């Protein structure tokens, strides 16, 4: 069944690509069918525990779902379907639609493949397919290809090769490529390898989950990919890193005596990722970039949760994985819709879309509130659990760091909403209409999902519970998750439902109060009609405050902003290129030199003859 | 200072023989040129003689002679010389070359002159209104603009203010000054 699903994706990708050459409509239909039919089969036909074996080159590839991967694959498939529906109108009239569909399908397939892989070889194969299919997406629009694309691919390759190295070492020492075997027999490795392998694997997964020094590809890659794909990129693809990290953390690191230290280091890295990425997000003027940095920051939270590894922290991380996929998917869709309707995503160019794209605004608003972690939406639940877990685990300074990141997150949250939807309505954007229905429905659905999960988190707790039991956490007995009640281990509770009702009641009451109080005396005036020194803004005058939006704050964090990790990498890359150029000049193009090389080589070998051959 | 000014005059005369100069005490130097020669003279002064700064463009309405006068006030920061470049424009067809590509700030002065005196600067690119908004009368700084008549036409007077006196004739009588008839019409 799994093989069939994956083959359907693969075949569908090719058929879609060919069909799109035939006619765009055929391509659209085939694309939807390619995503939805296997996805439907996945939801209906696949059970946890089913195992498939394949053979290649004397290796056995084992495929099967675990409860942990089931959780992640639900994200992949769900987000895949919604984004596929969204992508069809999004890509209408654009270039390279066929390539987009092809890579999109391949990405979904490879992510599912990673999740069903029970051995490292197929894990790696799908990992690489995921890498290059997403790479082709990143460079699809042809903007800044050499810099962004190569950066992404180099970092991905570093990660992938680290994983490759780790897996061949494990295979040579343990004689098996099976995930389960390598984890169970981890103690049989030599001491050096016991340290080396988790570090290599953490590098591999850290690259994909944009961990701090390895994150530099992420903002550019996220913002460069088509927006219909970035939701999947940020929402699901980066979660593959988290998936791997969970596997490594609960199996390998736990068996290490230095495990606690590594956990702490990773947690701190995660914390710094969250904080630094948030600060960078604040300085961005492009919605895509802002969301991309924000994604990096949110991954930092998840990494913290995974690294701390207490049941509550892991629960928080898993919850945030799901929720992040939802709100970030929705937000990237929002940006995509805006890009589609207006042609730009720069804050300084667009304003006042709220009345033109109300549904987009509503989903953006809900998603942003979830992103900011404000109750009663889903983001709060995960953040609450994360803080509790950290405090109980005595990571006090880390809590402060995350609080700082979270609070600073409000700045970019507001910047995002204000940048697109608020401010003055410009005649330039008077023609803008709401996005097509097929684009609106997925994002509204995802946004509403945040609402539901914020109030009834128990809906998602069941699969998370199964996943965590699989990951080796004892069934925490539902103590952590009751009926919409959050418990700490100290016995404190947050009851979500009455709060939600209170919030709703008060909100509705005051909204109605404001609406009905003196309705006759209150009327709408356009945003051009504001009290600015009595001067009437000209048609072309845009009084909205957009440029240098967060400048006071940026000035406050100026010492930080001077240090860009990207710069160091660029310097390193330039240095390497210079070194390469120097090396290249060994081949002078001069025949005599080559002859001299040959003679010198002969002399050298004769000189070291004894050392070589005894 | 004297030598510097003489040298300057010599230099200017060498290039623009038709320019008329008039010397004052101190660091002031006056120069009168044709309106056609204004841009080239100013450009030369700026580029070759160090008059890098345009302080102001002053304007006078010589209604008796039927001419407007523009005075470009330049300043040489190196030689510390103030140079007044005068030029006269016919009142009937007041058009002169725009010089805001030589000094960017001239744009502002020229906009003011355009509104207040009605001189057209060819090629002046500027937003429509500067000081006067919605003005549809003759430019107000022209001497043939009758302010009181305009005020009476446009605004209302609170009753009791009609006894505004023409004090100028009283003063002139007292001082024995002679005011020509046409001038009486334009001033009170």
């Amino acid at each position, binding site marked *: 069944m799994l093989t069939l699903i994956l083959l359907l994706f693969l075949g569908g990708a090719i058929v879609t690509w060919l069909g799109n050459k035939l006619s765009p409509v055929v391509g659209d239909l085939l694309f939807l069918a390619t995503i939805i039919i296997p996805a439907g089969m996945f939801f209906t036909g696949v059970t946890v525990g089913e195992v498939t074996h394949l053979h290649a080159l004397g290796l056995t590839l084992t495929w099967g779902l675990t409860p942990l991967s089931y959780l992640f694959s639900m994200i992949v498939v769900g987000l895949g379907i919604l984004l596929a529906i969204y992508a069809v109108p999004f890509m209408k009239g654009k270039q390279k639609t066929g390539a987009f569909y092809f890579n999109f399908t391949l990405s979904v397939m490879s992510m599912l493949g990673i999740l069903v892989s029970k051995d490292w070889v197929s894990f790696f194969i799908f990992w690489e397919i995921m890498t290059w299919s997403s790479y082709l997406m990143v460079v699809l629009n042809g903007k800044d290809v050499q810099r962004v694309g190569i950066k992404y691919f180099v970092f991905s390759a570093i990660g992938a090769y680290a994983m490759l190295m780790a897996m061949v070492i494990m295979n040579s020492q343990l004689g098996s490529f099976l995930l389960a075997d390598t984890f169970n027999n981890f103690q049989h490795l030599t001491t050096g390898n016991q340290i080396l392998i988790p570090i290599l694997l953490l590098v591999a997964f850290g690259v994909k989950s944009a961990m701090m020094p390895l994150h530099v590809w992420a903002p550019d890659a996220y913002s460069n990919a088509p927006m219909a794909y970035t939701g999947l990129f940020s929402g699901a693809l980066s979660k593959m890193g988290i998936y791997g990290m969970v596997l490594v953390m609960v199996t390998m690191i736990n068996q290490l005596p230095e495990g606690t230290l590594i956990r702490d280091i990773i947690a701190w890295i995660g914390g710094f990722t969250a904080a630094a990425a948030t600060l960078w997000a604040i300085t961005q003027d492009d919605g895509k970039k802002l969301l991309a940095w924000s994604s990096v920051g949110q991954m930092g939270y998840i990494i913290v949760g995974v690294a701390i590894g207490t049941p509550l922290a892991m629960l928080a991380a898993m919850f945030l994985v799901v929720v992040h996929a939802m709100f970030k998917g929705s937000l990237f869709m929002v940006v995509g819709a805006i890009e589609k309707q207006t042609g730009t995503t720069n804050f300084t160019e667009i304003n006042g879309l709220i009345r033109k794209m109300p549904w987009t605004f509503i989903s953006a608003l809900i998603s942003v509130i979830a992103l900011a972690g404000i109750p009663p939406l889903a983001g709060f639940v995960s953040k609450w659990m994360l803080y509790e877990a950290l405090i109980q685990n005595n990571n006090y300074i880390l809590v402060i760091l995350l609080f700082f990141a979270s609070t600073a997150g409000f700045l970019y949250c507001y910047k995002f909403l204000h940048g697109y939807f608020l401010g003055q309505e410009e005649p330039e954007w008077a023609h803008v209409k709401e996005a097509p229905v097929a684009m609106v429905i997925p994002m509204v659905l995802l946004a509403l999902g945040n609402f539901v999960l914020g109030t009834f988190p128990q809906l998602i707790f069941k699969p998370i519970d199964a996943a965590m039991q699989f990951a080796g956490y004892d069934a925490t007995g539902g103590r952590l998750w009751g009926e919409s009640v959050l418990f700490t281990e100290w016995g404190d509770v947050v009851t979500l439902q009455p709060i939600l009702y209170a919030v709703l009641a008060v909100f509705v009451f005051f909204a109605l109060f404001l609406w009905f109080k003196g309705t006759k005396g209150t009327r709408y005036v356009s945003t051009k009609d504001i009290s600015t020194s009595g001067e*009437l803004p000209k048609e072309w005058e845009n009084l909205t405050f957009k440029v240098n939006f967060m400048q006071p704050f940026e000035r406050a964090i100026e010492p930080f902003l001077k240090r860009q990790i990207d710069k160091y990498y660029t310097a390193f890359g330039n240095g390497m290129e210079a070194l390469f150029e120097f090396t290249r000049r060994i081949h002078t193009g001069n025949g005599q030199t080559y002859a001299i090389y040959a003679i010198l080589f002969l002399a050298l070998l004769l000189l070291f003859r004894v050392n070589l051959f005894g | 200072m004297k030598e510097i000014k003489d040298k300057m005059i010599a230099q200017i005369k060498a290039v623009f023989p038709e320019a008329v100069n008039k010397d004052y005490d101190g660091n002031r130097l006056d120069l009168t040129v044709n309106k056609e020669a204004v841009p080239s003279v100013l450009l030369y002064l700026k580029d070759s003689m160090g008059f890098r700064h345009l302080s102001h463009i002053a304007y006078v309405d010589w209604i008796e002679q039927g001419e407007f006068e523009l005075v470009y006030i330049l300043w040489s920061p190196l030689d510390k010389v103030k140079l007044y470049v005068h030029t006269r424009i016919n009142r009937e067809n007041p058009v002169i070359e725009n010089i805001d590509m030589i000094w960017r700030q001239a744009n502002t002065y020229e906009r003011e002159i355009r509104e207040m005196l009605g001189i057209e600067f060819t090629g002046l690119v500027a937003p429509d209104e500067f000081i006067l908004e*919605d003005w549809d009368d003759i430019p107000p700084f022209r001497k043939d603009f009758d302010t009181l008549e305009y005020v009476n036409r446009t605004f209302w*007077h609170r009753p009791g203010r009609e006894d505004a006196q023409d004090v100028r004739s009283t003063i002139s009588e007292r001082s024995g000054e002679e005011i020509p008839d046409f001038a009486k019409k334009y001033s009170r």
Partner: protein
Amino acid sequence: MYNDKNSKKIVETIQNWARSHSIWVLAYGTGCGAIEISPTMTSRYDAERLGFRGAATPRQADVMLITGYLTVKTVKRVVRVYEQMQSPKYVVGFGSCTINGGMYYDSYNTINLLDRYLPVDVYINGCMPRPEAVLAGLSKLQQIIREGNANGAEKYLENLAWYKENQRKIAPNWIAKAPDLNW
């Protein structure tokens, strides 16, 4: 009950009392009169004890103090600011410039009679009025409000055509371009 005449009157009385004791002032600081507002509001004369308080924007303000001559250019802004204020709203004219043009009575760009363009509730005489006079004028305004006679805003709305005619006379293009009245 709300429509009952007596209770309506009672409510209005209370409202008028509150309005008279909570006057948020938007000082339109033209001319020389703006300097008189500072002593009026600060320690020496302390208008706040009477309920006066500075307002930052027209949307929040109750009364507009016009503290000197108004040129044609500024009168447009004043009209706009006045229209942006929310009813009930009042206008206080400072000094002779607003009353009859003062020393600028014959300037081609200065209006003479403010009440042709805006409904002025109280004029304060003087050139310029001292803070005592200003306080007296403001007290007069309070008294008018309490009596329910400070209905400049309604007057303006009722006679909008006349006011707009006058305004158009000095600023024809502007009135055509301006957005419709917002209160």
